[in-house]
C-alpha cells in the first residue's frame, strides 16, 4: 500500500508560465519513456522477481517514480495554469486545450494518449531488468532533450534533478541484474524438473 506524503520529492516553483514548454514536458508524464510508464513497469515486474534485492529495488524505484510523476504533473500545471485559450493555441496547445482545458492528462509530446503498450512485464527477470536499464537511459536522454529546449532556470532545475535520478536508478538496476544473474548461475538441485523443461 501507499500513504500520501504532502510534499514533493524535489521543489517545483515556476514563476513564469510557458505553455509551449509544458507541451514538451508532458511527455514525461504520459509519454513512452515517462514516469507513469516507469512506475507501472517496475511495480508490475516486482511480482515475478526471484531475489529479495530485486523485489526491493523494483518496489522502491517504482514508488519513487510515482513521486517523479507528481513533480512532472506539477511542472505542467504551473506552466499552464490560467493561460488564456488564444495563447494556448498560439503556443501549440490548441488541440490539448480542446480536450483538456488546463487539466493535466497523460499523453506524449506528440499528443498520443498513455498506453500500457509502452511497458512489458515478461515474467523473465533477466528480460525485465534489461528493459528497465534501457528505460532509465531513454528517460535520461528525454530529460536532456527537454533541458536543451528549456531556458528558464525554474524549469531546468527540477529537470536536472529528474535526469540525475535516472542515472542512479540505472546503477541500481545494473546491480540488481548482477545479483539475479549470480543467483541463476548457482548450481541448483531439483526434486522435480523446473517447469520450462521437458515440455
Amino acid at each position, binding site marked *: 500500500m501507499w500513504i500520501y506524503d504532502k*510534499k514533493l520529492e524535489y521543489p517545483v516553483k515556476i514563476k513564469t508560465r510557458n505553455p509551449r514548454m509544458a507541451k514538451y514536458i508532458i511527455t514525461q508524464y504520459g509519454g513512452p519513456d515517462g514516469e507513469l510508464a516507469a512506475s507501472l513497469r517496475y511495480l508490475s515486474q516486482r511480482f515475478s522477481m526471484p531475489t529479495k*534485492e530485486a523485489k526491493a529495488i523494483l518496489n*522502491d524505484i517504482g514508488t519513487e517514480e510515482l513521486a517523479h510523476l507528481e513533480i512532472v504533473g*506539477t511542472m505542467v500545471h504551473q506552466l499552464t495554469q490560467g493561460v488564456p485559450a488564444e495563447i494556448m493555441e498560439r503556443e501549440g496547445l490548441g488541440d490539448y486545450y480542446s480536450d483538456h482545458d488546463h487539466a493535466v492528462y497523460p499523453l506524449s509530446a506528440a499528443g498520443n494518449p498513455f498506453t500500457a503498450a509502452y511497458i512489458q512485464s515478461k515474467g523473465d527477470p533477466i528480460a525485465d531488468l534489461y528493459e528497465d536499464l534501457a528505460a532509465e537511459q531513454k528517460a535520461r536522454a528525454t530529460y536532456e532533450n527537454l533541458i536543451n529546449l528549456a531556458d528558464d532556470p525554474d524549469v531546468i532545475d527540477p529537470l536536472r534533478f529528474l535526469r540525475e535520478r535516472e542515472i542512479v536508478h540505472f546503477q541500481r538496476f545494473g546491480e540488481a541484474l548482477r545479483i539475479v544473474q549470480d543467483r541463476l548461475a548457482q548450481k541448483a538441485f531439483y526434486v522435480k524438473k523446473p517447469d520450462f523443461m521437458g515440455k
Partner: protein
Amino acid sequence: MDMNREKLLRELMAADFAVIDMNLYLDTHPNDQRAILIYNVLVQRAKMLRDNYERLYGPLTPMTPSKCPFEWINEPWPWQRHYSPFAL
C-alpha cells in the same frame, strides 16, 4: 507560505530525499554495515524534522491526530504554486 515554514519544509524534503537515496543503495548492498549506520542516522534526523514540522504546520500524512475541522484538507497542496520553497 511563510519563510520559516518554507525553510523547515525544505530541510525535511532534503532529509527525506537522503533517506530515499540511501534506501535504494541498501536494497542492492544489504550487507554494507557502514551504510546502514548512515541510513539509521538519516532516518532519525528526518523523523525529528517531520515531527517538528507537523507540530507547527499540520499533517504531512493523513495519519496524524487532528483538531476540528479536519486539518488534512487544508491547502496548499504540493502542486500549488505557493507551496514549494524556491528551487535551488
